[in-house]
């Protein structure tokens, strides 16, 4: 996209493309300036749609998502009171009924917490590799959600809305910033080898944003769909067919020079051809050194860990090549057995997390180390998210914890984020966000701020409203911005 067209859109907004006749502007007499709108059929395959509102700290985002509601008090937020009052009723909520039913007494975390780094931040000893990064992380311990159900919770965390049909943060960022690398998609979702997260593809949906802002799903185990030339067609025929097709399409475009879509379509086929070359290259993990593979643990005997490690390495390669938004999942949807495939430890917390933490810990820490040592972290924003937290009590008759939408932890790291910071807190048991309660909208207001956008100005008209990633809420979390 050239500067001129960018400036024009900025001036007229993206509804009004060139109405110059006197008296015509009143045709569209509604407040249309700077609104995204379905009539915007912009064909720029790469450029963003919205000029930044201020200088950006981050150019791209890595969002790691641990679905199943990863327990804040067993991973990130130390609650000494749970150790003191282990086995006693939770004061004031002795008869608590939550998602799956009745709760028992308070239950301490099965693992000790240990201070690390210069900040002395204590996290679970189940995460020894992650402990090496605490000085670079800004923990937000006071997150709370609207819903206690996984599916709506996951999409709420990803789209700012707890019902389906809204664009994921990655789609918003693609819409705002466009692609940094024309030969790769702007937004990639990397599902876990165990499957999709709760609510599946709605987590990385483009919602009502045009399809060009959709996520491409890609993982080490799952190549981009339809990327490869069909086996039944040899390379020479394929090449000639594309050239023949492009001749046909160029002729049609030339005879209709005013229809910019037709030229865009010619360009899209060229871009697809370049993607066919770039995407296999980016997935070629074998070109990485043995040291890097060992760092991530890609050859680990734990197959789940090795698979996730390979996806972590893939994430770095995507970011390195200019993908704007990478959505990396560690764990999947719910299975018939709670806590088996994801972090949903209803009944057997210890056994479940002794399965999940080793999968998560080393590869994630390696990815952060790698981002640091390659300098990528300077302009990459890293997010760690889950859909909600867990109860300080055990579920009646079990040694697990039920859903807790009222308090949980997420964190940020990297470009523009203060390190070694813990913002907000739940109460002494971990039951409710108490100090600086923070919403998903606050979280994304901050993400967009770091990317150069005012979250209230990044909008798209849909069914009666100029929709935002942050709905009608959101305040910048100043305390964690460097």
């Amino acid at each position, binding site marked *: 996209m050239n500067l001129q067209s960018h400036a024009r859109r900025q001036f007229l907004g993206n509804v009004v493309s060139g109405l110059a006749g006197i008296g015509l502007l009143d045709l*569209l007499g*509604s407040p249309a300036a700077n609104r995204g709108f379905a009539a915007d059929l912009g064909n720029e395959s790469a450029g963003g749609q919205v000029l930044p509102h201020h200088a950006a700290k981050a150019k791209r985002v890595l969002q790691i998502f641990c679905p199943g509601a990863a327990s804040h008090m067993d991973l990130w937020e130390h609650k000494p009171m749970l150790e003191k009052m282990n086995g006693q009723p939770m004061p004031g909520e002795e008869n608590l009924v939550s998602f799956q039913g009745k709760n028992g007494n308070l239950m301490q975390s099965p693992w000790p917490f240990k201070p690390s780094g210069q900040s002395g931040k204590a996290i679970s000893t189940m995460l020894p590799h992650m402990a090496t990064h605490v000085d670079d992380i800004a923990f937000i311990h006071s997150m709370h959600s609207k819903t206690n*159900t996984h599916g*709506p919770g996951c999409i709420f965390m990803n789209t700012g809305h707890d019902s389906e049909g809204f664009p994921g943060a990655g789609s918003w960022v693609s819409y705002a910033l466009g692609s940094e690398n024309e030969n790769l998609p702007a937004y990639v979702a990397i599902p876990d080898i165990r499957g999709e997260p709760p609510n599946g593809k709605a987590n990385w949906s483009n919602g009502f944003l045009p399809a*060009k802002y959709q996520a491409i799903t890609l993982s080490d185990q799952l190549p981009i769909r339809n990327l*490869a030339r069909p086996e039944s067609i040899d390379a020479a025929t394929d090449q000639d067919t594309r050239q023949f097709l492009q001749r046909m399409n160029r002729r049609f475009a030339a005879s209709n*020079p005013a229809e910019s879509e*037709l030229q865009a379509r010619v360009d899209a086929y060229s871009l*697809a051809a370049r993607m066919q070359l770039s995407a296999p290259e980016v997935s070629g993990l074998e070109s990485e050194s043995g040291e890097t593979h060992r760092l991530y643990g890609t050859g680990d005997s734990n197959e789940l860990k090795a698979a996730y490690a390979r996806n972590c390495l893939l994430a770095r390669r995507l970011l390195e090549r200019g993908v704007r938004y990478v959505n990396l999942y560690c764990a999947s949807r719910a*299975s018939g057995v709670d806590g088996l495939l994801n972090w949903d430890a209803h009944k057997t917390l210890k056994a479940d997390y002794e399965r999940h933490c080793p999968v998560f810990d080393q590869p994630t820490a390696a990815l952060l180390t790698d981002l640091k040592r390659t300098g990528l972290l300077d302009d990459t924003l890293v997010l760690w998210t889950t859909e909600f937290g867990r109860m300080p009590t055990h579920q009646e008759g079990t040694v697990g914890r039920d859903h807790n939408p009222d308090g949980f932890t997420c964190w940020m790291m990297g470009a523009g984020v203060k390190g070694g910071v813990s913002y907000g807190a739940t109460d002494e048991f971990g039951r409710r966000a108490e100090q600086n309660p923070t919403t998903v909208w606050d979280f994304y207001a901050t993400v967009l701020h770091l990317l150069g956008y005012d979250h209230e100005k990044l909008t798209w008209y849909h069914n009666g409203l100029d929709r935002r990633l942050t709905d009608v809420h959101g305040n910048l979390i100043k305390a964690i911005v460097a």
Partner: protein
Amino acid sequence: MNQSLLWCFVSLALVLGNAFPTLAVDFENDVAPILAEHCLRCHRPGNAKGDLSLETDQQLRDSEFVIGGDADSSHLVSLITAAEGETPEMPAEGKPLSSQQVKLIRDWVNEGASWPDGFRLQQRTKADADWWAFQPLRVDPDTSLDELIDRRLGETDLSRNPTADRHQLIRRVTFDLIGLPPTPEEIDAFVNDPAPDAYEHLIDRLLASPHYGERWGRHWLDVIRFGESNGFERNVLINNLWPFRDYVIRSLNEDKPFNQLIREHLAGDVLEPNEPDVVIGSAFLVAGPYDDVGNQDAVQAAQIRANTIDEMIRSSSEAFLGLTIGCARCHDHKFDPIKQDDYYSLYSTFAGTVHGDEVWATPSERQAHHDKSQPLHQQVASLEKQLRDLDDAIKQRESESANPITDQESKQRDEWKKQLDQVRQQLSQIPALPRAWLGRHDANRAKGPFHVFLGGSPQKPGEIVTTQSLVAMSTSDDQHEPSCASIAYSLSGDASESERRLAFANWVTDSQNPLTLRVLANRLWHYHFGTGIVATPSDFGYMGERPSHPELLDFLATQLRDHGWRIKPMHKLIMMSQTYRQSASFNADAAAMDADDRLLWRFPPQRLSAEAIRDSMLQLSGVWRRESILPRDDTSVSLQTESAVPSGGPGFRLYQFMQDNVCTYVPLDQHGPETYRRAVYHQNARASVVDLMTDFDQPDCAFGTPRRSETTTPLQALTMLNHSFTLDMSQAMATRLAKASDQVSDQVDLAYRGAFSRKPDDEERADCVSFIEQHGLAAFCRALLNASELIYVQ
């Protein structure tokens, strides 16, 4: 900055500008808007937090919140003021008032805090009851569609293009009405038809085609967010909602009046409970997504139920009324004259509706089933009783005798057991009555009184609401006389669930309701021209676009009303116009004035929808299967009954469906012949990406989609070039061409005519022939199916 803030600042700037010359504060223009915008939502009758209502000044004065002439002692002022770097106590939600706003309020208090007698503070919306869309239809009876278009063009010194040529016309109208390309035979017949009314005949033929309903039914299914899985976490496929899809297709083919169709959507089960073909219409209410995960937390469960009803409110108000009533869930609508009471009036209307399947049969089918099964049920009951009695008798004897059962009794028992098995066997062989996803209407759930939920929370019931028509369209005041005050309704608290839905259905579809007619007329225009007269077809409120041709919209709405809400005559009216028939040729001068062609100086070229692209591929390759392909051996299809739509019945799937605790949809790499049906028969699950369909902007059906995006992406190219479906279609098309002729140049001509509705020129033909000679027909067809010209219509 969001719109409301922007407008707040704009109005503030105006306020300041007005106030400047005298330095005196004008309460009504300066202060009241601030209080209304920032305070009133939580301090008003019905939601008087801290027992304070600002509707009048009485409580403000009584409680010394405001002491005229003394701002420093007035509590209100201290609440909205804070020390540097701190946040004032009020407003409790939202941003603090600006320093100018605080100063205005201080000055107003210091100047005596005058409050005009009888002044009631009200939240102002951008659109009032005199909003254009609510007004009666205004029509010049002597006008015509073309005249209304030409008038606007003339005002800008523009004029319409000349008529398109016949090749373009038949391609345009065929795609428009049936969503398929014209066949070479159809093209020849039309192009060579000497009759003066050849074009009219063409329109009539297409309107009578059974494929018309498949094309326009799909449009309607978009509008009403029809989808066949429940969405959310479990996202389970719904296998017996397809009769609703077939009902829509059939209704369109029959040209059922749309007021009737909409009435059936809202209350078909009430209108004709014994008529399955009408009852199925009300499946509309439960055709949206809903959360069915069991939740033991009572607060969360109540919220989920409220969300489910919210989905019905939004879907119906946007689809039928073009109003975003859903925006009034937590507070009065910010832009449109829709009160929270209006929202909860609809809440009471849909409160009894529950998702699920129900028996779907005529009374005689039910009777026949009853007649067959009832005697058998009776036999079962009596055999069971006999066995029980015998067992009881034996049990009594157990204490007395070591051998309580006689041989005869033992035999008898075996005999009865055998009989019981036989009868049960007979019972199981009676086919169950068919069940369809009709939803249930539970009168008990719908018992009032219903309350406004403050802030949208079921935990905060506010005032009791009355079930009634939209207030702004029902009451008159000094300024305006609503066009449809005469059809307003207000029901008593003990009105039944079905009465409420019926009252709403009748009000929406009354010919005196200008909104429904305008919205529907605009949708027709939107699909014919690619953009509606109102470019936001489901939003006729302030945030929507204004009509480009208000008189034309009213003209069409009136025509629709006068044609008894039938839309086939409307298609004909629109398509017979010169405006529709003009060519799509570009005109740089006109574009300089009106780049978006909103004035219609040319026919706007359009890209085909995802469905039309796939359907065209099926037609060109000759593999399209027009009959229903019932997978009789597929046990996952729970409803296997004949459909009234010959090509209908259970939908096909372009994904593999996997279900454990939740469901996963994996797109298929191979599309077998069972998928060679029109895309409208695809079982569209929510949040299930399906290659071609999604790449070409088929919307996820989480919401109604009044207008689809049209994007161009490299993913489209990858799918269209490499998915095996394209290869299969290319191969089939090649076989077909080879059968038709053994001359390569003839094959090229035939392919061009089928795909592009024209013959190739010499240069094109030569290029194609040489390519085919080198790489074969299938490779040629693969390229052709990827051609831009196939998917653009001029």
